[in-house]
């Protein structure tokens, strides 16, 4: 059962010499071979690479043990992880879930992958995603849809659905995803795992294939809060190659666990519940589970009060102007000239038309058109500029609310995992799946989803915890305390 380990448990056993990284990696690979035919979390598997990295980790552990420096060994040494396929790994195919990059092998790798490699982590493979991270179910992947391990007829959420499902089904110990409007938190909620959307600028975007540059952020998906804290700590930090990354020290995210532990509980922590986040139409079990979670945190000593985020209903329209506008430029580089799909044609323009016509899926084309329109002469002021102004109001909503409270608690998604195919023909209904998550990306602040219950169908429900810029540690403190008082994270599905 090595594959079911958390990072912190495996790390302890690796240091104790009770397991080897090679055994651990082999066990996780076996788990993938056993369940991924049903779950379909991975787009690309790297068994040889992973086993070689595991052997190197075993050598590093042995050397550290001999030198008496085990304590200095990075905690991720020998830990098998999965990477969302919008993050580049040198020498490995990076498809972004798109046909246009089907054959593209990245010659350089993302800053986060450099950090993981430096920490001795093992990379198992690349996980499925909605094409260019545009979607909430992985149904927009050009390759296949990932299935929710809790119920294979359901979506895992998206766009980091491959990573969330892989963590949920024990096909990795933890994974990296990316979150532009909820793409880490929503699949974390739908798969019953922990997912963090760090503050914009906390994690380098260098090597993250851009969807919407001012909103994208890489974040961890993990089996529990401790693991999420470990992985966030490993990838966070300033990177001169990303001019939007911020040069602030990275706190000891795991260390804050102790602040919320034991008798001290959540005393002194102020939790706000935004009235706009319990809108009519949301699944009653989701509201019930989230309100119960807030009550439990109050019992743990937190002071709970209602807060207001008045511009909440504008977040979705604003997001669907700004994100597609940026995407329309970010995706212009896929022109069939330097890499990826290149459809033969007699002229440059015919080549663009064919390559992009054949290479992009419907949702990507929809967003490129939306964004191109929003930026066009005569429409810029009414759409893009207005959206940026409203974005400022949304940001101010959070700033104001977070003057009175430390953490905002609300649902991650209005429903639990929906059926595969249920929303594919109704983009607007699909967009509403992210209605509670995308305002954070617009505000640039941080948020997390963690399990807080199950609905009658046995599908997990996500609790979203939100804090101000660079206050990840505050969220983690609340999350640790809540997790210690509950057992939701210990429940496991039995896929396949």
């Amino acid at each position: 059962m090595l594959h079911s380990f958390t990072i912190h448990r495996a790390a302890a056993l690796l240091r104790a010499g009770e397991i080897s990284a090679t055994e651990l990696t082999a066990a996780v690979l076996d788990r993938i071979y056993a369940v991924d035919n049903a779950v379909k979390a991975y787009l690309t598997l790297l068994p040889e690479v992973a086993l070689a990295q595991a052997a190197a980790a075993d050598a590093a552990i042995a050397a550290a043990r001999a030198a008496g420096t085990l304590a200095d060994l990075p905690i991720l040494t020998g830990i098998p992880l999965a990477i969302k396929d919008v993050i580049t790994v040198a020498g490995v195919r990076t498809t972004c879930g798109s046909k246009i990059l089907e054959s593209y092998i990245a010659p350089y790798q993302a800053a986060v992958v450099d950090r993981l490699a430096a920490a001795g982590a093992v990379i198992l493979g690349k996980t499925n995603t909605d094409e260019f991270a545009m979607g909430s179910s992985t149904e927009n992947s050009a390759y296949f849809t990932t299935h929710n391990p809790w119920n294979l007829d359901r979506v895992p959420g998206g766009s980091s659905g491959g990573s969330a499902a892989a963590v949920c089904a024990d096909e990795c110990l933890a994974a990296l995803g990316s979150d532009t409007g909820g793409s880490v938190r929503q699949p974390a909620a739908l798969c019953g795992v922990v997912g963090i959307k760090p503050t914009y600028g906390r994690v380098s975007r260098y090597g993250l294939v851009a969807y919407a540059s001012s909103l994208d952020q890489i974040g961890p998906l993990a089996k529990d809060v401790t693991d999420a804290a470990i992985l966030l700590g490993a990838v966070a930090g300033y990177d001169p190659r990303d001019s939007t990354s911020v040069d602030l020290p990275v706190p000891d995210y795991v260390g804050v666990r102790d602040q919320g532990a034991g008798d001290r509980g959540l005393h002194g922590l102020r939790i706000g519940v935004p009235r706009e986040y319990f809108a009519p139409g949301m699944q009653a079990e989701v509201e019930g589970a989230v309100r119960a979670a807030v009550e439990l945190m109050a019992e743990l000593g937190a002071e709970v009060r209602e807060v207001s985020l008045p511009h909440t209903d504008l977040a979705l329209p604003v997001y669907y102007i700004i994100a597609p506008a940026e995407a329309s430029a970010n995706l212009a580089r896929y022109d069939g000239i330097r890499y990826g799909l290149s459809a033969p044609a007699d002229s440059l323009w015919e080549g663009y038309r064919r390559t992009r016509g054949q290479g992009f899926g419907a949702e990507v084309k929809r967003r490129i058109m939306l964004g191109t329109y929003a930026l066009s002469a005569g429409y810029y002021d009414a759409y893009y500029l207005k959206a940026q102004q409203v974005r400022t109001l949304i940001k101010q909503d959070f700033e104001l609310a977070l003057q009175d409270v430390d953490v905002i608690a609300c649902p991650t998604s209005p429903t639990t995992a929906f059926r595969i195919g249920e929303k594919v023909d109704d983009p607007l209904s699909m967009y509403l799946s992210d209605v509670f998550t995308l305002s954070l990306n617009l505000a640039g602040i941080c948020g997390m989803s963690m399990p807080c219950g199950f609905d009658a169908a046995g599908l997990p429900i996500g609790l979203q915890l939100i804090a101000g810029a660079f206050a990840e540690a505050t969220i983690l403190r609340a999350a640790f305390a809540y997790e210690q008082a509950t057992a939701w994270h210990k429940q496991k599905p039995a896929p396949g």
Partner: protein
Amino acid sequence: MTHYETIIGLEVHAQLLTESKMFCGCSADYADAAPNTHVCPVCMALPGVLPVINRAAVEKTIMAGLALNCTIAEEAVFARKNYHYADLPKGYQISQYELPFCRDGWIEVEAKVEAEVEAEAEAKRVGITRAHLEEDTGKLVHAGAHSLVDLNRAGVPLLEIVTEPDLRSPEEAHAYLTRLQQILRYLGVSSADMERGAMRCEANVSVRPVGVGEFGTKVEVKNLNSFKAVRQSLEYEVARQIALLEAGERVVQVTMGWDEANGRTVVQRTKESSADYRYFPEPDLPPLVVERAWVDAIAARLPELPDAKAARFVAEMGLDPREVAVLVADRAVANYFEAVVSAVRNPVSSRNRVSKYAPKTVANWITGELFRLMNAAGVGIDAVQITPAAFAELLALVDAGTINVNSARRALDGMFESGRRASDLVAELGLAQVSDAEALAGVVAEVLNRYPAEVASYRDGNEKLFGWLMGQVMRATRGKGNPAVVRELLDRALNVQR
């Protein structure tokens, strides 16, 4: 016939002389490099890469802005200019739109007043609307039915300088470009070499009947790759527009390209098909705050500009403004001139001391003799191997009467060729001037004996022959005779024997 006024505005792109490209670490010095060797994931626009601003390019932009009397922005914003082309790897160019680094400047150019005979130069102020920083595109190489993409140039820093519609003739446009090139070169921010594509020009041209307040319909002319192309295309376009109006037709707003081979402008794009670049702020680059202290530090490093240098030469050295204009046209020449003047005034040894050699003489030697040698060899001042001190030594030898001017020219030829010292060449070539009256008297007597007819003619009143005889004596001394001594001896000989 109606008289027309020409209205021209110029957009100039100048590549900045930085070590690396605008947003990545690739070398910006791609000249003569094999295609696609100065590239990396960033300038090839691979998925996932991000730009990082080149600080040196920003400094050079601010420096240019200060020299162009611009207001420097306190906060500058990069923007994406979206369009598809094979030489533009990202599908957008990172440029600047609403908040450029430099705005509202001006420079003065020598403009010729429209006059019939002798055009008199007069300073004219040309407004600079803005100067902003962007990245260059790659290059397409057309090979038969195929086009090949070379991305060595993609991402090289490019400074775009836009004028107000202040230029009133192709000559003024030419003068503006010349002055702009001179300033950019003085600053060392760009080679501003049009023939090598380091400086490129686009023009907006319109004409209107004199006295009419509104501008006429403007036509954009692109592909101006030389000073000659700028002048010729503008002359052509102005004439074309006037001919249209004279024929009762309208000028249509279009983008034209200059067809150098056929000497005419050709329509490239109509207004209806013009691109919508969908500019928006570059989300990968936060607004760049330009600290006042940074601008001040750059301003403090600003070199003396041509106008100031020229004014100083006139004021301090008493030189003629016309002569100064030649000296300051190239910063390196001006510096060389000043170095020679300085060496003349502060000789390394007393041997080189020059009393009467004023800056005027130094200027004459440089713009006359040195330029003659440089032109003949086809080299610039940078290739001249005569040090300012060596030049000063040569002038000191003339001043001391050791050699005459003719010999000095010959010595300079040798110095230019080999970089050797004047005194060595004088000794080796036997150029030292002969001032010995006894020796020269013999030569004079010899010449008078050889040309009795001419001597008789002179004595009969044909005084013009004095100069000719003088020349014969100098020739007999192989140019080394001291002209003053020769003149005196000849005069005495001719008049005594009369």
